[in-house]
């Protein structure tokens, strides 16, 4: 029986949320296929207690290829290791997160093992009868949804948009094996050296992985005005993003840019002020669960996709939202 695999990711010794999001996807698929769900981690130094959360969040088994040479992501080595595991264990399906790691590793491995791969899926299902993975994803800036399958190639492979599913609730009664696998020396590719990591400025850990994103556009008028959006983001437990115009004016750095030439995000809440809603910007936000927009122009395109819109002057509206949120939180305590 071939299993469903999900690729876990870690950062600074902690499992990243995408690892659990993938398990809630994988659980559904494995149940439909009547097979096991395995979470696979290529890394080093994570204790069993840490890995057990993968079991508690839906995995039947955990496999960790444990080697210091896998500590930092270097695609050549990771790809050698994963391709070898695929050849040896022949999984039915592999899901990875559509992160910088997943979107680099999976296409590399798909070539090596001659498998089809679908990028950045937002829906997955199993086709009855054929047991093939049906992979649905937005394309052309989110204007179409394409459903794709690989009828003759195995494993079935897909990357999944972060935040497009929620982790399963922690179930500490679940049990499962945690197996450590040694890395083979031949799989180490020493050509590329990781020199280091320069963290982003404060307040931007992974805009793609935030539950709430507060974005500003050209209507914010200047960099200083973003402080009111930062306050709002703080109140909502979110991070700051912006349009290309906001980035090109130097109000925000490029990692904050949302849209066609920036990041694609799927938060629970996307809230924006002074954003017109160009087709290129919408490409990055369409799969957000809720969209709230503040714009003075009632005909602004952003209102077409908004679940809640306020037509008004953002310089009046945003400070009042901040004040009322603060008051609400105080009285809630």
């Amino acid at each position, binding site marked *: 029986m071939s299993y469903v695999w999900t690729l876990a990711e870690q950062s600074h010794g902690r499992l990243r949320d995408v690892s659990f999001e993938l398990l809630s996807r994988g659980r559904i698929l494995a149940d439909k296929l009547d097979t096991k769900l395995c979470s696979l981690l290529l890394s080093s130094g994570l204790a069993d207690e840490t890995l057990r959360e993968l079991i508690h969040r839906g995995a039947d088994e955990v496999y960790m290829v444990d080697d210091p040479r896998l500590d930092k*992501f270097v695609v*050549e080595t990771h790809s050698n290791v994963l391709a070898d595991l695929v050849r040896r264990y022949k999984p039915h399906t592999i899901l990875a997160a559509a*992160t*910088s*790691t997943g*979107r*680099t590793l999976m*296409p*590399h*491995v798909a*070539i090596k093992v001659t*498998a*089809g*791969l679908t*990028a*950045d899926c937002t829906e997955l299902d199993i086709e009855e009868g054929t047991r093939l993975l*049906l992979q649905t994803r*937005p*394309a*052309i800036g989110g*204007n*179409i*949804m*394409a*459903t*794709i*399958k690989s009828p003759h190639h195995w494993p079935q492979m897909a990357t999944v948009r972060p935040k497009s599913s929620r982790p399963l609730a922690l179930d500490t009664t679940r049990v499962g094996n945690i197996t450590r696998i040694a890395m083979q020396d031949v799989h180490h590719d020493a050509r*590329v*050296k990781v*020199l*280091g*990591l*320069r*963290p982003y400025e404060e307040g931007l*850990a992974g805009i793609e*992985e935030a539950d709430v994103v507060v974005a500003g556009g050209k209507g914010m008028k200047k960099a200083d005005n973003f402080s009111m959006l930062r306050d709002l983001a703080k*109140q909502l437990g979110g991070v700051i993003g912006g349009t290309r115009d906001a980035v090109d004016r130097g109000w925000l750095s*490029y*990692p904050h840019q949302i849209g*066609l*030439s920036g990041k694609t995000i799927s938060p*629970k*809440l996307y809230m924006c002020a002074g954003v017109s809603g160009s*087709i*290129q910007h*919408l*490409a990055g936000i369409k799969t957000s669960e*809720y969209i709230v927009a503040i714009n003075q122009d*009632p005909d602004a395109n952003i209102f*077409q*996709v908004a679940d*809640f*819109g*306020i*037509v*008004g002057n953002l310089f*009046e*509206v945003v400070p009042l939202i901040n004040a*009322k949120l603060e008051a*609400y939180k105080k009285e809630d305590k």
Partner: protein
Amino acid sequence: MNIIIPIKQVPETSDVKMDKETGTMIREGVVSIINPLDLYAIEAGLLLKEQHGGSVTVCTMGPPAAAKALKEAIAMGCDEAVLFTDKRFAGADTWATSYTLAAAIKQVGAFDLIITGERATDGDTGQVGPGIAAWLNLPLATYVSRIESLNAGRIVVERLVEEGYQALDLPLPALLTVVKAVSSPRLPTLRGKKKARAYNLRTLAAVDLPVEDAKIGLKGSPTKVVKIDYPKVTRGGVMVKAVGEEGLNNAVDSLLDFLKDKKLV
């Protein structure tokens, strides 16, 4: 420094309008352009050439009409352009495309660096760059936001990852996929446009390349599109006007109710 830049021709989305009735994109009369994200790759290549000498070759796999995109790249300052075109290439997914491009690039000649855009704005996969690197066994850096240095056969770059900027040191030949932050694309010059008009680009078909028939085009593609939906993007949400002190107050109150209702606060 010989640099190869595989590009893609895509439908232009900037003039695309939404159909207010159906809520979908109006694609009629949309013209084809160089994938906007490939412009950053072209510019990065041109800058490296200016600093280190050598040549920049653009190439694409596509229909004969894709010659227009290649000529635009020549007008920007690229030295050579090669078109891989054949009916048998049609319908290729990212697996078959990267196979064909990898074989074709080897055929075009020796190179030190391949630079691609992060992804194409139509397919949106970002899988072809890493795929070419896998086929050619080239060291790979994706999401490159800065090229730090290039000397003694090695290139140092920064790439955007979730936690920050990761610095990588790669031996050449290597493959980079780049994001917008890497460069600000130049516009074609008048001289460049003149050169592009006179330029005779090289064309290669399947028979000219060391490719297996079973691995190219639709037939060579593991993935098949089984369904296309046109989702409504319009959400028909609530809209309130914040005019006057009272209007403003009410608008923000109802927003708070909305946020509470959806458990967002």
